């Protein structure tokens, strides 16, 4: 599947998982939230796919040079760190895609937030303790992200601009603003507290991974257990029905785009923490990865379905492919091809399943 000459290609077993792959997959139980059968299958499929992929890389690594892929703690840690920023964007994107929208501006909202975080930490560090300056940096990153988020929301909800176009506009605005603020280069930060967050560990788990996990769990709760999440699914499936049921659709959509922008803002801050520098183009390649992660995670671009836990699997699939191919010394360009193929296959499997096992399509 990764177009590798090597037998057994990672993920080639995606169509028929064997018993031990099922055993590695995490349990299909996901909290108290009840998902429809189709969603459960989509979620399980994403995790099975991840397990199969890891198994494939493990076999490949052993066959190729007798080493291990998965049981190397350095690899696990690197993949986790590598996945953090794309995962945050993808988590925000999940909400938007379930509502039958899309947010193309997330990558540059993240870049803008990264640059603003860097400037703010530097500036505040001039007269504050390093940790306080970092707090200022987080607040500034998130605050600046809410501005394009709010504009996206108003464009989509009030002015009825299609999400694709409205957020494309903000993509350009944020891109320009970020490069202007960064003066066309990266903005280095000198702050001991910031690099401690970006590179420190608690019991061998990087802080930024812990921050991302906590944040993503909150988003999972929001989507699966609250009215906001429930209304998001309803709007994605049938906006008119949601409106007739008395849901404030405009208000919801406005909040939704602010939420996805806040995810990008946090992602931008974590990027700056990790590299001790802010860069306008930090999120540029990650936008499409975020959409890919959501789709691999079982969401439909037509809206109405998707889960945060599926998106986590999707983001990990992409991170494992990208990191794994580097680890195995495959030319980096194969990453693009592999991720592209995985996206297409995920969608094909999803469609086949909907047609085959999706129950009756009413009218």
């Amino acid at each position: 599947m990764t177009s590798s000459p090597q037998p057994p290609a990672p993920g080639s077993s995606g169509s028929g998982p064997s018993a031990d792959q099922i055993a590695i997959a995490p349990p299909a139980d996901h909290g108290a939230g009840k998902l429809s059968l189709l969603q459960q299958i989509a979620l399980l499929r994403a995790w099975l796919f991840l397990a199969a992929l890891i198994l494939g890389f493990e076999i490949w690594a052993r066959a190729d040079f007798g080493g291990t892929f998965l049981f190397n703690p350095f690899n696990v840690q690197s993949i986790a760190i590598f996945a953090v920023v794309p995962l945050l964007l993808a988590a925000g994107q999940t909400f938007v895609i379930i509502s039958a929208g899309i947010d193309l501006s997330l990558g540059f909202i993240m870049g803008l937030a990264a640059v603003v975080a860097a400037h703010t930490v530097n500036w505040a560090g001039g007269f504050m303790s390093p940790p306080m300056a970092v707090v200022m940096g987080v607040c500034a990153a998130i605050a600046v992200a809410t501005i394009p988020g709010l504009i996206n929301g108003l464009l989509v909800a009030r002015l009825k601009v299609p999400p694709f176009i409205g957020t494309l506009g903000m993509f350009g605005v944020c891109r320009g603003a970020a490069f202007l603020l960064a003066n066309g280069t990266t903005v280095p930060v000198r702050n001991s507290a910031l690099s401690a967050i970006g590179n420190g560990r608690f019991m061998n788990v990087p802080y930024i991974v812990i921050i991302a996990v906590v944040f993503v769990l909150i988003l999972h709760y929001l989507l699966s257990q609250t009215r906001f999440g429930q209304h998001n699914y309803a709007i994605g499936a049938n906006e008119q029905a949601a409106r007739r049921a008395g849901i404030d659709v405009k208000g919801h959509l406005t909040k939704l785009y602010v939420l996805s922008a806040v995810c990008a803002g946090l992602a931008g801050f974590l990027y700056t923490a990790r590299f001790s520098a802010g860069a306008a183009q930090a999120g540029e390649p990650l936008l499409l990865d975020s959409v890919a992660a959501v789709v691999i995670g079982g969401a439909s671009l037509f809206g109405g379905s998707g889960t945060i836990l599926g998106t986590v699997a999707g983001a990990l699939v992409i991170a494992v492919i990208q990191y794994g191919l580097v680890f195995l010394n495959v030319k980096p360009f194969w990453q693009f091809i592999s991720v592209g193929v995985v996206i297409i296959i995920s969608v094909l499997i999803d469609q086949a399943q909907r047609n085959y096992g999706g129950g009756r399509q009413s009218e």
Partner: protein
Amino acid sequence: MSEPLLEVRHLSKNFGAVQALQDVSLAVAPGEVVALAGDNGAGKTTLIKAISGVYRPSSGEILLKGQPVDFGSPQEAREQGIETIYQDLALADNLSIGANIFLGREPMRRAFGFLPVLDRRKMAEAAKETMALLDFHVNRMEAPVSNFSGGQRQAVAIGRAVYWNAQILIMDEPTAALGVPEQRKVISLIHQLKAQGRGVIFISHNLQDIFAVSDRIVVLRRGVAAGERRIAETTHDEVVKLMVGG
């Protein structure tokens, strides 16, 4: 006949130069089913939209239990117990029956004593009871409503109205998109609503259905009331004559 639940008096509605309704009157008593019939463009949909708060009448008045009302939106009409079931049913297909019944008014509970979460059990139980009330027995309460047939989905839409205690249900061609067995099911649903003492107004082009379930029929023709008959005292032929005129 007991005091009417709903009374429409001399209602007119025009869209610019188009006179969609002119001086139409109508009454619905508790436990009464009134059929609205008429040719295409006769004004049936316009009439129910005026009743359910979608359109403001150009003139005339609407009384609910004897009190004049003036709805600014369908929400206001719903709050007063008038629920409209549109032909497209307005269901979120990806959600369960319970989630659809409670859409926009979801019950919450506290997990671990503090964390507010959706009370899915309550939704499922209420859905089960409501559907049983309509003589629909579903055991797959978690399944999205897209898995159900047209008649079952109609029952979900009606169930939502019943759960929220609608006193008057208005249905625009509830049987139009259904096969014959499903049409029967919807007719029996209307019988249930009648037995529960609710008022029903339904639009239909199908005289069979109208004669099977309604107490009275009101025929519209080009925006005016062409006639009103008790079902027990009329025939298909007479109704058709009223519809086409002459």
